[in-house]
């Protein structure tokens, strides 16, 4: 395929996408659920790609994403909640005078959230990145629990509002803004992955010892990946805070990290497009497509006994196990989306059917 064809196709795809988004945005009332799902997916996509940067591209098994999201979300919220409504947010214990008037414009507050997460990553990364795979996983998981415990503790009441959580967080003005922020974040990470540093990360994933022998400083590069990943997890946290408009420490439980990890696995470790695709698929199926499992099902007047609340999550986890066991590489493996791949697929489909027919004939 010629390069120009590819560019034209890409532009066309983006245009169609934009048109769909604009249409949804214009008819906000009718497509509220779709918009919510797309927004949530976009936010999860940012965090999933940031996790993939570590787990899939650098080969560091980190389970601390929720902790960094929490740092980002709280930093953002503290700086972005309008000063006028702060008194009512901190109704129980009052607000610390230091942050009482610290209000930043929203974009700056989001970046501040990311930077704070990155700062924490820099501090803890130095010691814990020396640890090997599983130990690193469990240490980062522990870190994220520590963050949560500190945020919720009564000692932090005047800053994080302890158990009461934060609310009145400024929302996203519209769908397009969410997509735009997510797209910028993911684009930067893609640029990084394709840069010389990204190649060095991949080298570390492939073979640490060989990478080091090729002059790639392990600690320095792991640290860089960890900080950048945490920065975007922090931004993702800030986005989640804007999306939810009220947060508390329980939002950032280990389950959140697991959810993100599942997206990364289903999408394929080491594939950005896989993560993005999986973020949308997983969110949509969890929130919408599988919801009917939770409702009583009546077929011909007979109610099917299994359909009751909770079945949706069981079905979802079974699907997940199937992916983990039988499609270990996920949707995309380590590959990225290409037009050639897509067309190749279309060409294959007729063959697939042919193949089936032959088998049936036999």
């Amino acid at each position, binding site marked *: 395929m010629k390069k120009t064809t590819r560019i034209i196709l890409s532009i066309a795809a983006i245009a169609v996408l934009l048109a769909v988004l604009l249409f949804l945005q214009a008819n906000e009332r009718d497509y509220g659920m779709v918009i919510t799902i797309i927004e949530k997916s976009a936010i999860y996509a940012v965090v999933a790609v940031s996790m993939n940067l570590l787990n899939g591209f650098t080969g560091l098994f980190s389970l601390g994403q929720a902790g960094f999201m929490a740092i980002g979300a709280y930093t953002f919220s503290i700086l972005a909640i309008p000063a006028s409504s702060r008194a009512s947010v901190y109704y129980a214990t009052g607000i610390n005078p230091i942050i009482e008037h610290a209000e930043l414009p929203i974009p700056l507050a989001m970046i501040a959230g990311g930077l704070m997460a990155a700062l924490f990553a820099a501090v803890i990364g130095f010691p814990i990145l020396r640890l090997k795979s599983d130990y690193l996983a469990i240490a980062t998981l522990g870190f994220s629990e520590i963050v949560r415990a500190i945020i919720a503790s009564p000692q932090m009441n005047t800053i994080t509002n302890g158990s009461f959580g934060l609310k009145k967080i400024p929302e996203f003005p519209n769908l397009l803004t969410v997509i735009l922020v997510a797209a910028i974040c993911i684009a930067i990470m893609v640029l990084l992955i394709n*840069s010389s540093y990204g*190649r060095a990360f*991949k080298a570390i994933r492939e073979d640490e010892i060989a990478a080091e*022998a*090729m*002059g790639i400083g392990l600690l320095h590069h792991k640290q860089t990946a960890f900080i950048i990943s945490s920065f975007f997890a922090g931004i993702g946290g800030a986005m989640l805070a804007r999306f939810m408009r009220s947060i508390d420490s329980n939002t950032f439980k280990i389950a959140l990290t697991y959810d993100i990890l599942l997206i990364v696995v289903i999408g394929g470790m080491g594939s950005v497009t896989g993560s993005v695709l999986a973020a949308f698929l997983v969110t949509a199926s969890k929130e919408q497509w599988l919801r009917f499992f939770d409702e009583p099902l009546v077929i011909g007047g007979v109610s099917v006994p299994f359909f009751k609340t909770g079945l949706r999550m069981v079905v979802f986890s079974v699907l997940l196990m199937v992916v983990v066991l039988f499609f270990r590489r996920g949707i995309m493996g380590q590959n990225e989306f290409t037009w050639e791949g897509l067309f190749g697929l279309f060409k294959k489909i007729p063959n697939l059917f042919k193949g089936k027919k032959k088998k049936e004939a036999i």
Partner: protein
Amino acid sequence: MSENLLHVENVTMQFGGVVAVNNFSMDINKGEIVALIGPNGAGKTTAFNVITGVYAPTNGSVSFDGEEIICNFPKGKMKKLYAGENNGVYTRTIEKTPDKITKLGMARTFQNIRLFKNLTVFENILIAKHLREKANVFTSTFRLNLAEEKKMKDECNELLDILGLTDVKNDIASSLPYGQQRHLEIARALATRPKLLLLDEPAAGMNPQETIELTQFIRQVKDKFDLTVFVIEHHMDLVMDISDRIYVLDFGKMIATGTPDEIQNNQAVIDAYLGVQEDE
């Protein structure tokens, strides 16, 4: 006498109670091809790993190009356990990590090929160029170093061309035939622009024909890139053919050193390889 490039002094490497390398010293001068030989388990690769910074030696020091890059002495638990010589001679600890040592101009290959298997041949080489990059992570991400990036890629293409790997440029490294993987590993080491090239059994698993080709390849590379080469090898034909000097290790100790001719006629070496004849 030409200029000294690598100076290894009294290096001892002890794992628990096992002394893998015992009081090993050697020198390599610029422009030489030096070989390290010895029976299996003699400690050759361990010595290599000490020199390249993978293991910190228990005792001893290594200098490269006039700079001391490694120095250590027994401490902690090793203080009691130490079974080597020259205890107390060294009092400083210098531990350069392998990447720093590579940056100084020492590049290596591995006994059991360690390529970046799932990446392409071109990427494998390009990654080795990373260490000379001046751009930081931001300028690199936002492509503010286009000129440098282009230069890196051009150099890689040139290198592939010289080494005859252009045809397989976009193949996945693990899909190459064995011999080519060996060549690629050497090419990757060369991409770091080393002064000293360390080859760990480059001819392992090769048939005689391939070994001859490899011999020529090493010579050619050495001349073209103005290298000093340090090689561990079992194929005696290759070693005797290309080496200027040879060091022989047995049970961690150096038992002989000299030119290929001297080594071939050295009784200790013959005993080590063939086993000492019992009195009859």
